[in-house]
């Protein structure tokens, strides 16, 4: 019963504008958490996830500008959110909200109801896990827009951080903007600032690395004996052969890929205290459960 409750809570509620077939389309799609107008009130609006052209800041094919809300979820995990989504964006929003386990409402175009329902069933069927979020360093949140934008860039680069209110003794690296080490002027260029933190952390020490795409953002939860990795593809195109590196030794043979099913992980290697594997296909979302090797 508890499990069902957790699962139900981790899936957002869905709203379609009132129309002759709006509610019917959700019911037909098997979407069981339907929002009312009242549910949408007093929620924080989110950006439509995906990629966007940003001349001079991003490369259209190699490293597009990613619009993602993960940093906001990390900053305010207990807030209530709402997406107002154009057609074609519902799956990505569902994946994002589910991966970060936030209370979100999705206002969707009825045309997306069917595909959303298919993904909904996949997510609802996932075995529930309750694992702590993995982080490599901490960001002391002063509530400023500058710190928020730095979090945005850190999250987009799969630099795993924990948002704290005061420096955390659990981490070697605590980022507090406005200190001599992290001056506010540097944070004015959040991309360069994120890179500075990455260099301080070093790539070797990063718990998670993603190779083969600049538009996949991951969320990793883990305990002593197991881990769950969520992969969200913001690029709008299916990705083949994405390579993942995790610090630590893990077993795990497959991934659940939205719209595809269960796929075997490929070219798995455990060496030098790290585990690497390739995911043959990544649609909008995939989840991989791993077991630690002692």
């Amino acid at each position, binding site marked *: 019963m508890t499990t069902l409750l957790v699962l139900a809570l981790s899936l957002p509620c869905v709203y379609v504008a009132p129309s002759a077939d709006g509610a019917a389309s959700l019911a037909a799609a098997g979407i069981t958490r339907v929002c009312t107008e009242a549910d949408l009130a007093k929620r924080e609006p989110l950006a439509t996830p995906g990629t966007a052209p940003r001349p001079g800041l991003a490369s259209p*094919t*190699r*490293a597009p500008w990613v619009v993602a809300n993960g940093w906001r979820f990390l900053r305010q995990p207990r807030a209530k959110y709402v997406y107002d989504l154009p057609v074609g964006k519902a799956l990505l929003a569902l994946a994002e909200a589910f991966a970060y386990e936030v209370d979100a409402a999705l206002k969707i175009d009825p045309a997306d109801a069917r595909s959303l329902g298919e993904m909904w069933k996949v997510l609802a069927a996932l075995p529930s896990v309750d694992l702590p979020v993995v982080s490599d360093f901490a960001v002391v949140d002063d509530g400023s827009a500058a710190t928020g934008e730095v979090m945005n860039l850190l999250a987009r680069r799969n630099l795993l951080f924990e948002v704290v209110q005061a420096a955390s003794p659990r981490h070697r690296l605590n980022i507090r903007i406005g200190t001599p080490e992290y001056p506010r002027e540097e944070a004015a260029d959040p991309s360069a600032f994120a*890179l500075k933190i990455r260099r301080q952390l070093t*790539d070797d020490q990063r718990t998670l690395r993603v190779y083969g795409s600049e538009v996949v953002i991951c969320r990793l939860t883990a305990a002593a004996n197991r881990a769950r990795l969520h992969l969200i593809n913001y690029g709008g195109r299916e990705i083949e*052969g994405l390579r993942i590196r995790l610090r630590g030794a893990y077993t795990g043979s497959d991934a659940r890929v939205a719209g595809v099913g269960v796929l075997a992980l490929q*070219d798995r290697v455990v060496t030098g205290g790290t585990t690497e594997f390739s995911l043959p296909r990544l649609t909008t979302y995939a989840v991989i459960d791993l077991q630690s090797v002692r």
Partner: protein
Amino acid sequence: MRRRSFVRLLSAASVVRPFQNRSDTPTLRVVSKYSPSATPGMPGPYPGRVISIRSDRSVDTATGAADAAVVHDMLAQGMRALTGAATTADAWRRFFAPSDIVGIKVNCGGYPHCVSAYEIVADVVGQLTGIGVPVSHIYVYERFQSQLDEVNYAPHLPGGVQIVAAERENRNVDNSGYDPATYLEADFFGEEDTRSNMMRLVSRLLTKIINIPNVKDHGATGATGCLKNIAYGSFSNVARTHQRGTSYTYSMVGALAAMEPLRSRTVLQILDGLRGVWHGGPFARTTRYVFYPRQIMLGTDPVAIDRLLLDIIDKERRAHGAISIWDRSPDSLRVDDTRARDADPNVNIIIREPGHVEYAATLGLGVYDRARIQVQELTV
């Protein structure tokens, strides 16, 4: 005197300068389980030796059309000259056996005006099958299938030749054609994906590779010949090395070319200079910067051939009053302004790194010193 000025002056005077490795080369980490062969294909059995075959009849410069029969003679004479073999077939047998699985690395980036010539590729396939290599063992390859589709070699080749690419198109979504265990890792600009993986075809299937680049200018490397074609055409995620005015191709090109098993398996270099591009490369979407060297260079040493290529490109640029490929002046640089670059041959969008050829020599890939390169000139 600043080093940039120093290099430019020496180039203008055509003086051989002592090699100085640079302090700004990034750390490159090579991961490969493959060992070199007893005689790696690069520089192979003929270091410092280049056969240059010219024919005014090879291309009709009015139409751009090549003459297959003349090209056949150029290659045949060139191969015999390179090897000293009595017959053309024997020359090819020096490199290939019927049991080999042979890759032909073409260059399709200069479509439609300057790609690896159909006539050369077809003749190479004909020579291979002539010495007993099954057509099913011959792979014409590029990185992007979309480029191969544009060029469309199939009608020019026997049925059964494999025409394959690692990725469907240049979209950075298709990694399955690359070997996750064979890669070079480097962080150039802070990009997240720091790996360039070798094509699976190269690492896991081919036993020999023939490299057929073009005579082309290149905005990031100065010129794209043997080294650039085999290196950047056999690995993923390489465009990340040059952006925002800066090129890290100086060390990257040679480092990739030197990686095993690519280095050992690339046994023959055929620089297609029937047509050329003296500016705006590696692309050739208009004929404005196309010229006709009507020349093929053969050898096993990619550095020696590319050393000559640098002079060919620079000479043609000088003939048109354009800045040298060695120009590093900030005055010539208009970062990312491809429109300006395409309109004006005195505009660079990136500071070029023709020094990548000399750097490759320091990795043992061949001979850079012009005085030590033996060129045998043939005319057909």
